[in-house]
């Protein structure tokens, strides 16, 4: 492989060991991300890929980028992903059945062809000169060297990117801002609605979970005075996730109301 100039020379054995262990794991995690049904699991696998990449960066004499990768991606971005997942999609698990006809074979063929050709091209590429490492460039320390570039040659893109960040933050705020379409109901209005609209049965408010039950956890429906469970007392998102305990176990027998009648 001497004629392949991309070769940087045999790196030290620890890096090779690291690569051959971590690279297959990264690929498996990435593939898993593609295949698992639940978005949350995808996110976890994604976080793994990110960390693995950070390690690769550090191994390649880019410690600054490696740290930034961990802080920005696994720290900020992945948290954001999980957060949004909790907000919108935690209840759904994707169906992996394809709905657009012919898309799956086309996409897989195209992507595999793309990757295969890339690898094929890379394996043939030559620079025509021997490659250099980063030892010289990083002689003052990687962070200082990057800082020197960032604040001299790339100072204009740097400023532009900072403007972009601020714009993006503002944009996100504007987009996520909820425009109220109707007037916010007043206490008085709510109170009137409660009595006029629904049945009087709920006029005093819905039962809280666990009330009259033998278990006071939030995933246990309340028992109504006649002993039957009240599904309305459980939070809708818990119900959607399927995390609701069957309340039959905690049901009372038929309530004996004779004592009341005597009074």
């Amino acid at each position, binding site marked *: 492989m001497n004629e392949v100039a991309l070769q940087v020379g045999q790196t030290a054995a620890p890096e090779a060991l690291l690569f051959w262990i971590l690279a297959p794991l990264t690929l498996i995690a990435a593939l898993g991300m593609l295949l698992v049904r639940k978005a949350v699991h995808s996110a976890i696998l994604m976080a793994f890929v990110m960390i693995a990449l950070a390690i690769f960066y550090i191994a390649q004499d880019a410690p600054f980028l490696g740290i930034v990768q961990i802080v920005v991606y696994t720290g900020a971005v992945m948290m954001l992903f999980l957060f949004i997942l909790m907000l919108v999609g935690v209840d759904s698990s994707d169906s992996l059945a394809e709905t*657009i006809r012919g898309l799956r074979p086309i996409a897989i063929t*195209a992507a595999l*062809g793309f990757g295969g*050709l890339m690898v*094929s091209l890379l394996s043939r590429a030559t620079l025509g000169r021997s490659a250099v490492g980063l030892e010289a460039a990083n002689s003052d320390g990687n962070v200082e060297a990057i800082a020197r570039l960032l604040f001299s040659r790339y100072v204009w893109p740097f400023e532009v990117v900072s403007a972009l960040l601020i714009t993006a933050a503002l944009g996100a705020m504007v987009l996520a801002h909820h425009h109220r379409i109707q007037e916010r109901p007043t206490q008085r209005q709510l109170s009137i609605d409660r009595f006029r609209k629904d049945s009087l049965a709920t006029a005093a408010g819905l039962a809280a979970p666990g009330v009259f039950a033998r278990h006071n956890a939030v995933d246990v429906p309340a028992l109504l005075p006649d002993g039957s469970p009240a599904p309305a007392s459980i939070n809708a998102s818990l119900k959607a996730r399927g995390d609701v305990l069957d309340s039959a176990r905690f049901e009372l027998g038929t309530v004996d109301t004779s004592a009341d009648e005597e009074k």
Partner: protein
Amino acid sequence: MMMMTSTSIVYLIALPLAGAVILLLAGRRSDKWGHLLATALCASSFFVALYQLSLMFKRPSQERAVSQKLFEWISVGTFKIDAGLLLDQLSICFVLLITGVGSLIHIYSISYMAHDPDRRRFFAFLNLFIAAMLLLVLGDSYLNLYVGWEGVGLASYLLIGFWNEKPAYATASKKAFVMNRIGDMGLSFAIMIAFATMGTVSFIGVQAAVEQTSTLALTGIGIMLLVAAIGKSAQFPLQAWLGDAMAGPTPVSALIHAATMVTAGVYLITRSNFIFDAAPSAQLLVVIVGAITLMFGALIGTAKDDIKKALAASTMSQIGYMILCAGLGPVGYAFAIMHLLTHGFFKAGMFLGAGSVMHGMDDEVNMRKYGALRKVMPITFVTFGLGYLAILGIPPFAGFYSKDMIIETAFNAGGIKGIILGSVTLLGAGITAFYMTRVMILTFTGTPRWDEKAQPHESPWLMWLPMAILALGSLTSGYLLSSNDSLVKWLSPLFESHEEHHELLPPILVSALALVMVAIGVAVAFLKYSRREIDAVAPKNVSIFTRIAREDLMQDRLNEALFMRPGQELTKTLVKTDAVIIDGAVRGIGRLTIATALSLRGVQNGFVRSYAAFILIGALAMIVAIWVVVQ
């Protein structure tokens, strides 16, 4: 040659233009004082012109021309045109005529249009016309002239159709406009040829470039300029509009269709003297057109019963004289201008007289319904009569000097050409005498033939005063302009010097011949119309010649048969072609596009993921391409 510059020429144009703008924008608010403002502005423009004239007199003859640059108008690469004004000996003649006669006609119109609800609009258009006409004669390049040229065309259109509630009048204004367009096209072609061959369109630049330009191009420019002059000055074969243009109010006929706008063609030819001098064939064509028109107009004039149309035919004929004279080269330009100026006086005066008669006769224009008006309209009779004597060329009236000069110059053109032209002009003078005498007799003498209702009366002083001043002009202008050759000398710096011409006939003999012709014409008219009663209705059983003359020598029919009908057929064919071939092609393309789009619409299925798949396929294609290249 560096020309003196002046900053006050622009006021000549700006004053009447301001009047037009103010009156049109202020609308009905200015109904009360609009006519006074317009008249005052036109008169002040006249005074500016007088002031400019006095300045010119103080300078030696070679330095009398002044120019003024207004602003840079067009600047494309090396092609630059400034909106500039040029006031020289030729322009000042026209400026004085336009503003002077214009002011008089403004004054006249105050009274003439007093009962018209739209008098303010009329004055606004009059001012607009004055401004445009001044721009026409003051522009320092053909392009600036063109702006004025179109401006007077617009003003003429607006004023002919001033009473556009009558469909016939609206049609007349349209006819005038459309026929003028043909001439305007000629002018634009002339400008384009000049620009293509000489690279400049300013008068000075073109004059300097004539030397290096081929005769062919110069002839082309000359012919195109002639076409322009033919259209604007109602010359053969585009003369048919002038008779119908009499639909406009009489002051308009006097100002625009007798004294000023229709003479723009003469101005154009004299202004372009350097081109015509270098293009003899174009010059010959000018002479021919002039000769034909002067006979044409005169013949039409003999048969018209409408007093304004008779005068219009006379105008056509007189301008034919001018054009003919301007076509005779350096010897003729000054005489053409002289006749133009004297004609401006006497013809405007006669039109105003006709207007005065109409004013007194409830807008009756048929001369057969007049008669014996001499007694009830003495002032009109005297002023009209002075104009009549002037147009006949009776010494010492204006026409004698100017028309005799033209006849003389025609004879002196030399050879067979000189004899033909001289005879034509002489004959024209005789016929002119005939039909003008006819007008006089029918209108002012004989027995009254009015309707019972008509109550003819003399016009108010606001109307007869301008007529009197113009009559005075008809009386004196010829002598003033020709005594001592003053106009010829005044204009001489502009035109190339006279070559010595051989005199075919001595001047005194020419004058005598002309007077004899006139006398014959007058005598025939007297014999024909004064000795017996005039029919109040035009007789039907007249000779074929009279009938042809009454129909403007069949010009309208000719135009109809030659241009209008084939044009209509062509239009119909084109409409069909458009519907079948062009529209078919367009619709076919549309259908093809729709079919293609429908079949391609499947790709746009609205799913983001399939779009992403297409991006992926594109990326793959690029990689494949790179891979193939690397292989």
